[in-house]
């Protein structure tokens, strides 16, 4: 069950508790005062009844029994012995006061045989209404009726004391009525009595004020000494935790009470958190510094390797021809894009004896430094073997044999090696495991693709390489490349492929070789999009044109 909001706080609970306590106090006080007042009133009445009883027994009855009616009247009218007695009178069963009409007096005197009652006659007076319930009750039961009447802001206590028709009275009163009437006495409260009751009222009022004062005092004390201090502690702890200020502490009072102990306990807790966080901070700093050191070391190593690779790259660039041989019929262009610092592709063009030109393009398996080492071996082999007299297949065969010995079992290279007669345009070539070069005629648009005639170089111990021949026509453009171009893939893993390459070459056949190379590279990059190059790319273009003489 959900408590009302004001009961959620200690203050609310304390206020409710004290309110309830005050209410109980006030109700108890009221009950006590009421009861006491009632008791006092009852005591007052009882005392009067006792006095009247005593008066009747000791005074009235003897007078009546002695037949001294006149004395009785006298005694009654003048009797002031009872404190607070306002009046006392004898009332007959019809409510008329006795002894005040002449008829009764005469009757009494006649019955007595002498004139006993001589006082002046008065007219009959109705003392009590015959239908008064107290009066009727007293006549019917014969018991005392004691009750309070209030008139003119004055409280009076009235006692109706029935007068029994005893044997001694039968002479005058006969036996028809058991009760002859009542003795009606009326009392008013004296000043002392009222004072006592007023004192009780005052006492209750003062008690009420005292209870209220004590309650509010207790509430104020609780709020100041307990609730407000707890709220303060909570606020300060929140400030410390929320503001991450574990170097701060809660203020302590000199008088060490329980709340002070609570603050001390909090301070211990905050101190241990501070200790823990400091240790954590130090550990973090130490970790960061270690990471910084390691990063620096790695960076230095990386820089070293980088610098080393840059040197290697410059060396490798030296392996590639700085410029191509020139003659009236042939012109060469190339491009080289290694995918790492070092490339596994290589090409060369060199003049050979008797008007021949050597063309070479190779691609070592893998890429990076391992491929670069194979390329360096191939280059040195070509420089030595290539100078020997022999067909391209012979050179390739020699290279393959040596390479298979020098390199790991799964390393190889692919290559295209051609020897072209500059004048006649006849070419002998070995195309070993390499993507077939494309020849596009710039005049006619005819496309010819060279036939492969050998497998991978340097991987099989015994292998056979062959030569093929091909005749260039004027306007022919030879386009030799490595598979980095055709295997450039886009996000969908679609390769650029030889068909796209041939299409670009055909489309751009009117442009100069350098522009065609640019067009090929742009088409390849457009195809690959954001995908990086996965392999090295090398292109070698030869334009074969007429020198104006008849070949």
């Amino acid at each position, binding site marked *: 069950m959900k408590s009302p909001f004001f009961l959620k706080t200690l203050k609310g609970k304390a206020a409710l508790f004290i309110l309830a306590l005050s209410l109980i106090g006030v109700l108890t006080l009221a009950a006590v005062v009421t009861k006491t007042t009632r008791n006092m009133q009852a005591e007052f009445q009882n005392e009067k009844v006792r006095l009247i009883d005593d008066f009747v027994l000791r005074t009235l009855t003897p007078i009546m029994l002695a037949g001294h009616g006149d004395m009785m009247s006298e005694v009654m009218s003048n009797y002031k012995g009872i404190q607070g007695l306002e009046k006392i009178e004898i009332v007959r069963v019809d409510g008329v006061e006795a002894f005040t009409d002449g008829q009764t007096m005469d009757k009494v005197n006649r019955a007595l045989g002498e004139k006993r009652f001589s006082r002046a006659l008065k007219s009959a007076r109705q003392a009590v209404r015959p239908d008064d319930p107290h009066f009727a009750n007293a006549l019917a039961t014969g018991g005392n009726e004691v009750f309070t009447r209030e008139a003119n802001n004055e409280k009076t206590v009235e006692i109706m004391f029935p007068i029994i028709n005893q044997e001694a009275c039968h002479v005058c009163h006969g036996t028809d009525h058991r009760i002859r009437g009542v003795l009606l006495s009326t009392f008013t409260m004296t000043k002392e009595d009222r004072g006592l009751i007023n004192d009780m009222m005052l006492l209750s009022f003062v008690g009420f004020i005292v209870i209220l004062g004590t309650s509010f005092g207790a509430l104020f004390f609780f709020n100041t000494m307990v609730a407000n201090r707890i709220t303060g502690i909570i606020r300060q702890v929140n400030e410390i935790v929320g503001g991450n200020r574990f170097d701060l502490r809660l203020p302590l009072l000199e008088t060490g009470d329980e709340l002070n102990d609570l603050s001390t306990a909090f301070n211990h807790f905050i101190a241990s958190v501070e200790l823990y966080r400091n240790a954590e901070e130090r550990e973090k700093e130490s970790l960061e510094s270690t990471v910084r050191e390691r990063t620096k070391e790695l960076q230095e190593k990386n820089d070293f390797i980088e610098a080393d690779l840059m040197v290697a790259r410059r060396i490798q660039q030296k392996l590639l021809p700085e410029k191509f041989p020139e003659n009236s019929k042939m012109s060469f262009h190339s491009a080289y894009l290694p995918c790492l610092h070092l490339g596994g592709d290589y090409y060369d063009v060199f003049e050979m004896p008797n008007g021949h030109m050597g063309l070479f393009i190779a691609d070592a398996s893998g890429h990076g430094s391992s491929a670069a080492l194979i390329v360096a071996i191939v280059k040195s082999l070509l420089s030595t073997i290539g100078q020997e007299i022999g067909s391209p297949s012979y050179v390739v065969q020699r290279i393959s044999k040596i390479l298979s010995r020098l390199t790991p*079992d799964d390393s190889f290279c*692919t290559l295209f090696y051609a020897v072209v007669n500059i004048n006649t345009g006849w070419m002998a070539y070995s195309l070993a495991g390499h993507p077939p070069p494309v020849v596009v005629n710039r005049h006619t648009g005819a496309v010819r693709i060279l036939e492969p005639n*050998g*497998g991978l170089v340097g991987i099989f111990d015994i292998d056979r390489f062959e030569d093929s021949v091909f005749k260039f026509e004027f306007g022919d453009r030879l386009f030799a490349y490595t598979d980095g171009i055709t295997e450039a893939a886009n996000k969908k*893993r679609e390769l650029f492929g030889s068909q796209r390459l041939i299409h670009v070459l055909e489309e751009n056949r009117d442009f100069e070789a350098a522009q065609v190379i640019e067009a090929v590279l742009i088409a390849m990059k457009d195809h690959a999009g954001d995908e990086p190059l*996965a392999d090295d790319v090398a292109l070698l273009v030869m334009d074969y044109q007429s020198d104006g003489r008849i070949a």
Partner: protein
Amino acid sequence: MKISSRTENGVTILELLGNIKTLGDMEEFSSAIQAELDQKHLKVLLNFQEVGFVNSSGLGRLVLASKKVIEAGGVMKVSGLAQDLDELFTFTRLKEKIAVFKTEADAVRSFQ
């Protein structure tokens, strides 16, 4: 890449899935071949149906695998080459060294 092995009519068929491109691919491929040779499985068929791309290093490993199978006295054949790979096998003349079949069933039959 993923490689799964099964036997059909005494022929061990290695189904290759993915590319042969990274050093990890190659190590996986080489050890799969070695595992078959260790168990004297000498009729090995590589199903390339689900292979996308093989780079030059991958090609080197393939040749090496073939050499090892031959050295062990066995035969290694290949089936299911995609068009690009078929072209590669053609101009590298690997088809002269490693028998290539269009379908796995053809290749399995050729072992009998």
